């Protein structure tokens, strides 16, 4: 048994926000309340976590990450990636399908599920490819993958460029009740760019990607959601104009959701230098874009914070900027960035912040009802502190990779413990 004492329990789904104890038995929450004691009749030992001053939230969900297994274990494995996720407070992570081989059939899905069962610290929810090989030519085996355990489909890394194929995928997924997670990008506008187009890209002489590369594709995708009735989820939204499309879709009642990454709500293109740790796709946006994202995070237009944790082994990033792969790691800094950049700045309330990591992403996947922090609920919990200064050192990360733009950054907010199915997956030492 596990007793978490004196924490501020915040569960947006059940509307809870008060100082409570949480008692866990097995993988379930058996009771919540003030001054709980483990039952005297209880024979098994009780482990107690003193959560005084901490927040106790339902287990965090990351809608978007790359665990690199199978195929690119030099950069990350399910074991190392989920260990990093646990350190960041995540209890479940959605693994994007761009592995080698691509997760476009049930065999790969099952292999990921099996590997996760053996080695993962947190829940791994595979996302299946939308098209075979994510090549954008024909449908992947989406139905079989759903039965094997995928929670969504995506060709992440690239958009589904062919509108007719996108329509087929969305119609098919509407019937399967799977969300389609779209990496919005117009390839012809992207045109080999390496950072956001703007004054900074012109100064650095780096090929720019216009914000419209994302927003034009998002506009098309929203229209397609209207045509097909499918659940559209816009991944790693980086531009204000893209958010405008999402807002309009929501207003007209379409099942459209979106996520924003911590690096996009923290940094802008002005932070980009020739350091490849600042190279990711979509690229860091303008100051106006960041303001739009912050507004959307506050007012509900944004549904979730997702890391887009994209590890690349150090040698592959130790190259010229335009030759480096896109992507930054994000598990271990996501919550701390959210606390520092969103809560301590007064932009978000604590319940809203928690919502963006819990019920928000839960709703995108349709799992929000099983993840309430209530008696009888699943014992996936994230414990964090709003005020426990620490410094992130990429070299000490649990990830196999080091490509974080936040290496050396000092934080106030900190994940403190991650509980998955009643077990302590990680605890700050």
């Amino acid at each position, binding site marked *: 048994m596990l007793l978490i004492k004196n924490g501020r329990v915040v569960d947006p789904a059940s509307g809870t926000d008060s100082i409570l104890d949480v008692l866990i038995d097995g993988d379930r929450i058996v009771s919540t309340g003030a001054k709980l004691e483990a039952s005297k009749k209880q024979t098994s030992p009780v482990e107690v976590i003193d959560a005084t001053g901490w927040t106790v939230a339902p287990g965090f969900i990351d809608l978007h990450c790359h665990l690199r297994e199978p195929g690119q274990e030099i950069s990350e494995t399910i074991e190392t990636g989920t260990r990093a996720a646990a350190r960041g407070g995540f209890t479940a992570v959605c693994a994007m399908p761009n592995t080698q081989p691509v997760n476009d059939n049930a065999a790969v899905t099952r292999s990921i599920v099996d590997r996760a069962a053996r080695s993962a610290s947190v829940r791994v929810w595979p996302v299946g490819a939308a098209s075979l090989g994510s090549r954008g030519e024909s449908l992947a085996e989406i139905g079989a993958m759903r039965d094997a355990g995928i929670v969504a489909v995506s060709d992440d890394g690239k958009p589904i460029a062919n509108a007719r194929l996108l329509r087929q995928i969305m119609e098919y997924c509407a019937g399967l009740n799977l969300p389609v997670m779209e990496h919005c990008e117009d390839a012809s506008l992207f*045109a*080999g760019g390496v950072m956001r*187009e*703007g*004054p900074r*890209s*012109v*100064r*650095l*002489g*780096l*090929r720019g990607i216009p914000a419209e590369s994302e927003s034009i594709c998002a506009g098309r995708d929203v229209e397609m959601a209207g045509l097909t009735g499918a659940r559209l989820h816009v991944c790693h939204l980086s531009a204000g104009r893209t958010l405008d499309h999402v807002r309009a879709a929501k207003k007209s009642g379409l099942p459209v959701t979106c996520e924003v990454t911590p690096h996009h709500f923290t940094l802008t293109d002005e932070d980009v*230098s*020739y350091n490849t740790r600042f190279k990711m796709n979509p690229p860091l946006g303008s100051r106006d874009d960041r303001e739009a994202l912050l507004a959307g995070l506050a007012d509900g237009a944004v549904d979730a914070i997702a890391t887009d944790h994209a590890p690349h082994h150090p*040698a592959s990033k*130790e*190259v*010229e*900027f*335009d*030759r480096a792969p896109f992507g930054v790691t994000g598990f271990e800094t996501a919550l701390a960035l959210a606390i520092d950049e969103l809560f301590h700045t007064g932009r978000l309330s604590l319940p809203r912040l928690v919502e963006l990591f819990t019920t928000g992403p839960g709703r995108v996947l349709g799992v929000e009802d099983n993840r309430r922090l209530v008696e009888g609920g699943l014992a996936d919990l994230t414990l964090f502190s709003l005020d426990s200064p620490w410094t992130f050192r990429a070299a000490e990360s649990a990830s196999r990779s080091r490509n974080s733009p936040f290496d050396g950054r000092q934080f106030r907010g900190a994940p403190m413990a991650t509980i998955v199915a009643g077990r302590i997956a990680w605890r700050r030492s």
Partner: protein
Amino acid sequence: MQIACKIRRQAIGADQTTVAPSFRHLLGIESLTTGQISFLLEQSKIFQAIQRNPLKKLATLRGKTVALAFFEPSTRTRISFATACARLGADTMLLQADASSLKKGESLLDTVLTLEAMKPDAIIMRHASSGAADFAAARLDVPVINAGDGTHEHPTQALLDALTILDRKGAIENLNVTIVGDIAHSRVARSNIHLLSRFGCRITLCGPGMWVPRELESLAPGIRRVARIEDALQDADVVMALRVQQERMNEPALAAEEYILLYQLTPERLRMARPDAIVLHPGPMNRGLEIDDAVADGPQSCILEQVTNGLAVRMALLFHLVGGPNATQSGAPQTGEGPNAAD
């Protein structure tokens, strides 16, 4: 034989007794202070005089080795740097894109570390990726000179252009400078914009719209974009025609005839500029494309002087970065000589 050499000191900042403003690498103009730019130009004038000596070869850098790392093909810049090294008595080792292990897939980092292990006293680097020189400088102890990185900067070109302007105009302050061509993809334009705007020049950028994005205006104060070349040349003191890169990848091509029709620098168009305007071109020229023969060979053209001045600028730079005790990066004041140092 004409040997008389009288070097008149121009009023561009650096005084005789000022401290040499030390820097370790030359990665771009943007990262230099105005004082450092003035200093380099001042020192370059001394090497201009040496180009007129009957004996041009010095032994100043005898025993020093300079690595020329040309990851991107270049003839002029490479020969200019190699000649500058030779005139100062330094040995060179050459790495060229087609002859090196680059084609075998060696990373830039491994290549520059290998070069550094041969213990050169400086590495001069040309590379197709913007930021490649910064990348190398951040990882090496040896001074790095950027000889052109992608579409970022080409600092020695801007310095030699400034030296040419200084020669012809007597000063580089407050001039009207018009740059014509593919500004967006030009490292020469970027370095020139950074340098000349520092001295109060008003810079006009002109070219086909897709080559002159509005973000360029944010590079420095006082930059304007003008679509018609006739308008852009109005009152210009300095006209810079950029090379049209016909081999540019990933860009939809613009027909040469279109460019000639709208943007070629012709004698008629040049008449819009000030009568004493000078014409610069970084070379190599596409005669009959961006520049008409009559302009290229006309009295206002300084194109060959630019080549000669390139040697002076590069000698001054090498002397500064390699000639002194480059291992120690002190800002110690330069007193000329210690007490009876050499006598």
